[in-house]
């Protein structure tokens, strides 16, 4: 249902472009309800497996939902609803007719991806996701956006291609693409190593890990604000999710060396992204580089490898999704209100949008990992895991990353406190755009106070039970 409903929404919006907005909103609400229903089912009855069309695993398409997928689905639902509400205020009628079908399509692809139980399905959904994302980037029009979209398209295809090659190798060697079956059959061999290499490379490219991040800032920064929000918050989650699934379930035993490599790349991303963000003069670029840094944190979990670290990374991912969506929305509001996003000239705009600024700051607090926030919880767990396993240098990276984040967030926030005179002119930013950003940011912060429930969720279906978990 969670997949079919947005697809139906796509069709409806496509058929009646004039009504795209209300139809899209109704669909969005429907999807949220579906996900909540599925969530209830999973929490009550444990992990769910559903064979589409009644055909079993080796032949047909299986959908599988455990705690991990559920968490992803729920975050997507929450952020998705936020983006939907925000977009309903953001786009004019003409763009809306194009935006809504694409966005719902992207949402459907995401949901399908999180529910897929085999690596080929993952490929298909990843490809669909990439294509709709590229189309959305191009929505802004203009040369910049088109160039960025084009580059994004190439990267996306390249990444998927690598991944597909890996899938093909595995299928050739073990005769299946189902995750569970593969997990049983896989044994170390050159083919497996090649597959691991190819798939990882593809996914790293798509997750924009340093040094493969070059495509992300322009793409994320030149898209319209709601699109940036969904790219930075949701789309990047997808490829990381696949990587996590592969790593945890199919190749649970392959070597610490690769894990260390991932960790190194992650650490480099954290530092490089932070420094670059600090150097930006445009708000949206700053936020985009902050995404690069935040994604870097996730990869620090690989060398640590304890279940505590995985959960910490996922917690970071979730709070990143909420916070980053809020940040881009806030940037969108500022851009809409002041017509520019030059950080140095921000004061006159920022002071008249206190809600937006609050949203940005709260989201920033989560990105810095200051308590209480989801970012802090995740970071604490990673720190704890780093010290527990005696790998203190990762802890150092985490701390440095936090300091850099603080530096670039306050670089922006500082401009709110200037004696620029306040004039009382009507705000042209719709209230719902301000409130959506604020609520999402608030959610990221509150996530730090209500940890037990999401973490318990992760244990459903024991995604961290096997192999590498400690």
């Amino acid at each position: 249902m969670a997949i079919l409903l947005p697809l139906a929404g796509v069709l409806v919006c496509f058929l009646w472009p004039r009504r795209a907005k209300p139809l899209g909103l109704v669909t969005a609400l429907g999807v949220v309800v579906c996900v909540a229903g599925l969530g209830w089912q999973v929490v009550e009855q444990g992990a769910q497996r559903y064979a589409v069309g009644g055909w079993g695993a080796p032949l047909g398409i299986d959908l599988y939902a455990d705690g991990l997928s559920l968490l992803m689905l729920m975050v997507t639902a929450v952020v998705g609803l936020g983006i939907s509400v925000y977009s309903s205020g953001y786009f004019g009628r003409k763009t809306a007719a194009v935006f809504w079908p694409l966005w719902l399509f992207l949402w459907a692809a995401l949901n399908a991806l999180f529910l897929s139980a085999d690596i080929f399905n993952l490929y298909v959904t990843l490809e669909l996701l990439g294509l709709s994302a590229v189309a959305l980037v191009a929505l802004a029009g203009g040369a910049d956006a088109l160039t960025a979209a084009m580059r994004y398209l190439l990267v996306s295809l390249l990444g998927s291609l690598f991944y597909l090659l890996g899938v093909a190798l595995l299928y050739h060697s073990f005769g299946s693409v189902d995750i569970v079956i593969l997990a049983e059959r896989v044994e170390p061999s050159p083919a497996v190593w090649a597959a691991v290499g190819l798939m990882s490379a593809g996914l790293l490219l798509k997750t924009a890990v340093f040094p493969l991040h070059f495509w992300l800032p322009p793409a994320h920064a030149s898209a319209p604000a709601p699109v940036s929000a969904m790219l930075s918050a949701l789309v990047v989650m997808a490829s990381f999710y696949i990587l996590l699934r592969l790593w945890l379930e199919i190749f649970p035993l392959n070597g610490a060396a690769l894990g260390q490599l991932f960790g190194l790349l992650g650490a480099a991303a954290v530092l490089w992204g932070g420094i670059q963000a600090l150097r930006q003069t445009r708000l949206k670029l700053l936020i985009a580089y902050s995404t690069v840094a935040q994604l870097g944190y996730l990869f620090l979990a690989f060398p640590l490898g304890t279940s505590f670290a995985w959960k910490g990374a996922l917690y970071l991912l979730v709070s990143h999704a909420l916070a980053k969506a809020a940040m881009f929305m806030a940037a969108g509001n500022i851009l809409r209100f002041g017509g520019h996003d030059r950080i140095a000239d921000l004061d006159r705009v920022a002071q008249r949008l206190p809600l937006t600024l609050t949203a940005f700051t709260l989201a920033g607090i989560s990105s810095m990992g200051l308590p209480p926030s989801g970012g802090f919880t995740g970071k604490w767990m990673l720190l704890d895991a780093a010290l527990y396993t005696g790998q203190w240098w990762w802890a150092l990276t985490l701390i440095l990353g936090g300091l850099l984040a603080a530096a670039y967030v306050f670089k922006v926030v500082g401009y709110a406190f200037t004696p620029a005179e306040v004039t009382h002119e009507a705000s042209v930013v719709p209230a719902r755009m301000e409130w959506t950003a604020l609520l999402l940011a608030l959610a990221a912060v509150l996530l730090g106070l209500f940890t037990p429930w999401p973490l318990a969720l992760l244990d459903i279906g024991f995604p961290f039970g096997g192999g590498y978990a400690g």
Partner: protein
Amino acid sequence: MNWDSGLLLLILATSLLPGLVIFFLPEERVDIRTTLNMAGAVIKLVLVGVVIWGVLHGHQYETRLPLLPGGLDLVLHADAESVLFVTLSTVLWLVTTIYAIGYLEGSPHRSRFFGFFSLCVTATVGVALAGNLITFLLFYELLTLSTYPLIVHRGTEEARQAGRIYLRYTIAGGALLLVGTVWLYNVAGCVEFNHRGVLAWLDDSDREALTAIFVLLIAGLGVKAALVPLHGWLPRAMVAPAPVSALLHAVAIVKAGAFGIARVVDDVYGVEFAASLGVTGPLAVLAATTIIYGSLRALFQDNLKRRLAYSTVSQVSYIVLGIAIVGPIATIGGLVHLVHQGVMKITLFFCAGNLAETLGVHNISDMNGVGRRMPWTMAAFTIGALGMIGVPPLAGFISKWHLGLGALDAGQDWVVVILAGSSLLNAGYFLPVLYAAWFKAPPDAWPAERSYGRRETAWALLAPPVVTALLTLAVGLLASAPFSPLQWARFITTQEYAP
């Protein structure tokens, strides 16, 4: 949730909720804002009164919420030490709120100001009530964030520069504290504050790690407590509006740092265990250096608030010194100075604010004869200044007496020399101010005088310093009365050094 555990949450809520509501109030709703502020402050005071009564009668107040996996809870806990700090912040918050209402009358962004002001107090009270390090850390960072907007409130280039520097120091300090905390949890498991310390049972093999953790924690806390060389932000932060400086210097930030050090030494490591690690000696030397250095710098400042700021650097280290001299009497001196310094310093900053607001006097060189124009204000200032110097029977004397006695008792005679030297320096930077104010002839015109009719200044500006000056007198004169800060500090100390 029963009444006992809910009470502490209520204490937090009495400043948090008004703060959040105030953010959304339009600028001109002065009446609602004032009512909310005052109601919150008064209710908090009453609730704190209830807790004091309870703690004296051996009641346990504790609230526990799960925060992080691995059994890390958000613990709010009222013991004698936290009550001391909570009471201080609650009383001074009430006074400062009145002052701030008078001070900021008619200036822009008041809703924002009072919103963050309330958040700041919430964080301070949270710091006081924290029952373990992680809870402490949480409120400590909240304090950093909620004071930043207050420091840059004026929005001038100078204020923003000060804000940037403040953040640089405190966020780095927070990071150190975070590392220390995580590490400590890794080494020692779940650590909650306890009167006798909780680490003494650990293996000898962990001693090096524990020493390193101690350094990290103290460095993190020392930033806020303005220990030399981590004090750089404090003199700059005085560009904030006077009520903010008053609260920052007397209660909120520097005290949170000093209180944190007290917690770490007394309740995490345990005084005796810390001494056996050999970490208290260097801490005492650091505190002594800070005391002398702060006083020396204060001597050469002409700006009144800057001089007061350096004086804070110096005075707060008395608290740290008292804790680091291992001995019951010195601990009493340190803890009691936590309160006394707060009361005295807030008086001085209120007075400095009054001079600036009413006469436009910012520098000591402009203060000639100011006592004739504003006798009440300067009388309060005089009491505060004499108290700082340590003239009996004022508050500062009680603290210094106990510190000196405690040092002798612990066999650390050099501390007495430091105390004497510092008192001399205190006199050196306060007495000329007093002399100029009372005995020199006033100028023909003040830099920027505002007229308040027959009174010397607005009552909301005048009442707070007078009240706190009277408090300074009272806690000194009535030091042996029940419920005085001194008796309370004794009560705490008996728990820590009980056989």
